[in-house]
């Protein structure tokens, strides 16, 4: 998540109250900000951004929240913007590209380095948070005095126009910009498979920008800029409107005179943007108190909502009418309001309590019995290991001379070559641990109790889980009898009627391996002396005996399916 640096001086100035950085950090944490720390050099607060609260990405938004929480200024912030008389006409043809646009004008700004920084950071963070990397919303900010209203927003052919992109010198076509400009290369996937590209131009046909890629160089904002034109484009109206509302509120907080722009769509529908109309919701005191677990009067609830910058008033029947600021994009249910009441009240002020209801505990029988099995294994002197479930066909099959039967769960998007499938057995994990410990004293006795996986078309999610026990002994004298005596001890202690029958299979020495057969005559596992070829492959110069038993069914797991291999 991006980290934003908030200058405490500017924050205090906007709040109208001086507080130490530590104090600010503490209060912001109570408000739900993830405060990472204070920059030792600049004294700035470093905050991890929470994507659902884009209105708290910048110093103005934070000041707005703090003013409410500290009682300096509470209730719904008023944003009433006059009409600028400027229009944006949307031409047909962008329906499948990004057809929605919202725009605003901000006049009378005095920009300095710090404010330019604040605006650029906000733009970038909104692109990430609300814009999902410009896909849902892309913002353009221009020097209003370099362009001539009104504007048109419409499709252009890949070579239908030439303009100088921001940071460039030569005029280029849209196709050239996507090929050569760094921003073009970074965002061209957003215009993939489009036969036309979006273009915002002024009355003279001068290009403002090619959303969501790049602005034009002549419209660049500098410290001398006082009047701005702002647009947000996207494929759906909600994200576009919310993004512009956040920006408009910030410019208004910075002292700019924000004015509305009229957007005219091809069907003649007109929108006046930014739309700062608050959404209205009705909350009951009962619901609020039940969720938080405290008793509050409707008036107290309204008070906490006002501290959290909502408009709130108690209706005659005791319900609370709430006005949600237009820049909030996270409020979709009254439950969201209740959370803010709880934050306003302070999580640190809530006394923990226990649930008074009695419910009997119910452990899973399989887990309980695995605990007994662990006790038996440690009693026999074995040390437990836990190895990873992610593995590779090479590790699971090739290195043990086993055949891949195509019944394996395979990842679509693995992150490394060693981790492409889910393991089929526990033997590789045990052998790998012997390999890692080949210089440690002998004997080494290891076991693992864990899940392995295989395809099963009959299962709801197409795969089945098997609980298995695997164990191994590495010792100069280790032999088949050692593994057999452990299996017999387990059969005795766990009341498993197991039999061993001769069964030649890899990775064992021919004539020195057995199948473990259960009461029904089904194969429940295998054991044997590991073949020297396999030992060599694991870099081991000491004999190893291994066994693996499918224990789900043996332990009475009703859901366990018959073992297959």
């Amino acid at each position: 998540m991006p980290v934003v640096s908030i200058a405490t001086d500017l924050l205090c100035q906007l709040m109208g109250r001086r507080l130490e950085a530590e104090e600010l950090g503490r209060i912001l944490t109570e408000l739900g900000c993830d405060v990472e720390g204070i920059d030792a050099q600049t004294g700035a607060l470093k905050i991890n951004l929470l994507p659902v609260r884009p209105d708290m990405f910048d110093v103005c938004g934070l000041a707005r929240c703090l003013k409410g929480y500290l009682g300096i200024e509470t209730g719904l912030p008023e944003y009433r913007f006059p009409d600028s008389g400027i229009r944006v006409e949307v031409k047909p043809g962008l329906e499948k590209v990004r057809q929605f646009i919202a725009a605003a004008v901000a006049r009378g700004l005095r920009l300095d380095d710090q404010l330019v920084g604040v605006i650029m950071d906000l733009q970038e963070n909104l692109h990430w948070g609300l814009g999902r990397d410009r896909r849902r919303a892309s913002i353009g900010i221009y020097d209003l005095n370099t362009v001539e209203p009104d504007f048109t927003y419409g499709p252009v052919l890949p070579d239908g126009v030439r303009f100088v992109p921001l940071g460039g010198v030569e005029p280029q076509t849209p196709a050239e910009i996507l090929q050569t400009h760094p921003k073009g290369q970074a965002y061209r996937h957003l215009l993939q498979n489009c036969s036309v590209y979006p273009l915002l131009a002024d009355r003279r046909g001068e290009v403002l920008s090619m959303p969501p890629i790049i602005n034009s160089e002549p419209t660049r904002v500098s410290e001398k800029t006082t009047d701005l034109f702002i647009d947000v484009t996207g494929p759906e109206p909600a994200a576009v409107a919310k993004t512009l509302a956040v920006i408009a509120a910030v410019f208004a907080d910075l002292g700019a005179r924000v004015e509305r722009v009229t957007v005219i769509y091809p069907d003649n529908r007109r929108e006046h943007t930014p739309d700062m109309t608050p959404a209205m919701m009705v909350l009951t005191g009962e619901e609020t108190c039940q969720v938080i677990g405290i008793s509050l009067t409707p008036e107290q609830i309204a008070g906490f909502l006002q501290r959290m910058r909502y408009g709130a008033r108690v209706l005659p029947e005791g319900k609370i009418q709430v006005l949600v600021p237009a820049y909030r994009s996270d409020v979709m249910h009254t439950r969201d309001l209740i959370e803010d009441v709880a934050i306003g009240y302070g999580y640190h002020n809530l006394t923990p309590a226990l649930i008074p209801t009695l419910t009997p505990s119910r452990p899973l029988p399989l887990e309980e019995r695995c605990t007994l099995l662990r006790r038996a294994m440690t009693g026999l002197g074995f040390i437990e290991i836990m190895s990873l479930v992610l593995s590779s066909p090479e590790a699971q099959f090739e290195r043990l001379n086993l055949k891949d039967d195509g019944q394996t769960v395979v990842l679509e998007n693995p992150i490394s070559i060693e981790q492409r499938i889910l393991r089929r057995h526990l033997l590789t994990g045990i052998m790998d641990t012997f390999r890692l410990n080949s210089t440690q004293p002998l004997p080494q006795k290891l076991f693992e109790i864990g899940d392995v996986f295989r395809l099963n078309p009959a299962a709801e999610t197409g795969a089945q889980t098997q609980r298995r026990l695997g164990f191994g002994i590495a010792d100069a004298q280790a032999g088949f009898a050692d593994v057999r005596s452990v299996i017999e001890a387990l059969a005795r202690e766990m009341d498993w009627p197991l039999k061993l029958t001769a069964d030649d299979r890899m990775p064992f020495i021919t004539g020195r391996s057995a199948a473990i057969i259960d009461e029904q005559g089904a194969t429940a596992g295998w054991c044997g002396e590991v073949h020297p070829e396999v030992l060599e492959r694991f870099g081991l110069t000491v004999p190893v005996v291994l066994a693996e038993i499918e224990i789900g069914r043996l332990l009475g797991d009703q859901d366990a399916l018959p073992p297959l291999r």
Partner: protein
Amino acid sequence: MNIEESVLRALSSAPDNRASVNELVAQLGLNQSLIMAAAVKLKEAGLAEILEREYEELSPGRDWSEKLPERVALEKLGAVLGLTAEIEIARLPELLARPDVRAEVKWLTRKGWFTRERDRLVLTEKGRQALAGTLEPDELVNRELKGRDGVMVPELQQHLAGVDVAAAVGLLRGRDELVRVRRRVVRSLKLTAAGRAAAAQLERSGARTEDEITQLTPELLASGRWRMVTFRRYDVTLPARVIYPGKEHPLQRIIDEVRRAFLEMGFEETTSPVVESAFWDFDALFQPQDHPAREMQDTFYLRLPARARLPDKELIKRVKATHENGGATGSHGWRYHWHPETAERLLLRTHTTAATIRALAQNPNPPRRVFCIGKVFRRENMDATHLPEFIQIDGIIIDESANLRTLFGTLTEFYRKMGAREVRFRPSYFPYTEPSVEVFANLGRLGWVEMGGAGVFRPEVTIPMGCPSRVLAWGLGLERLAMLRFGVNDIRKLYWADINWLREAKLCR
């Protein structure tokens, strides 16, 4: 046989009929106070005299090492000296990796290994021999201290025949941080003429030494001959062979602790498939289908198997409506078009909340408390603090009295059981809980540690499942707790185990 007789016998066979108290302690396996008591008795009987002499004792100092610092310096310089066998003093700090090399220069020249010529050190013939392995007396003496608490000068002289130990001690004196030189009084016993006679008498009377035995045998017990023998004293302070019990994996021990804690608090245990559908991992939890966590970047999707069967149509309908417009939940939803094909995709479950939401769907009626401990997967590169698979603890409480305070109370109780002193909560955000909190626990000397996330399930999660009451939910990490508790700073150590570490990881803290 009494102790005085043993001492008398030992002295009569010692050279010059004389032995120090320490030598007698070692020889007879008796402690010092018993020997001294016997010595006093022998003296009173006129059989032995007690002599006291002062010796110097050498013991390893704070910075003792098998090699003196100038030997270490010599070896480092030897490795870089050219044909001219000289080196600029200005280069020494870099070569020896020490800012202040005055002490090294002093000792290298004092040992006669180098001569100092203006700004250079020049290797001498003696230095060449030293490089070839010739050790100086003080080095030989220093080496003798390995593994010893203290060594007397006479013993050193005995070990280092032909070495001028006195001169070596002279050189080492004053280098306290390396070798401490202290004066010690040594008491010894010497037989008088009467003592020699008494010892000879004792020998003739024939008290048989074979009556002292080391091992009690079945034969001795069966024959009853054990009555006629004495048992040789052991030095019970000597270390024995190191053995370890078979042990459960440290992570498993924490899993057991967590299970016990939740079972004690009236929870039922549940499980769910690791190979999970996007429906149960995301959609059922009201995570919109374009949520960044669902992208290929963060979640392992499966090639085989590829598609899951979705649950019954009614549930699908309710979930779809909730995502699109809030359905019957009072929410306005995410306002997009929900696709069942996206929900059918299979993945490796990214959290055990997939297990608790399945449990909720199966029986949404209060009161219930459910927990799950299980493997989860995130598409992350491996490093010291991240693995693509790890273990999570999830829990839910379906109850009429489920609220933010009882959530805090339940988790506080749980972490107290796990050893935390204090538990705190601060606001946070998760797509399926509202309110949402982050949980911090004070683990004593480890301070405040973030433990996981919790909250009250959103109505958009519970209502489509047919749940009539509020539901508390949390998801907590397990490896973090294990790493802190077992002092592991690399998570990989838990899964690529060093047997030594598994053997040493203490059962009890």
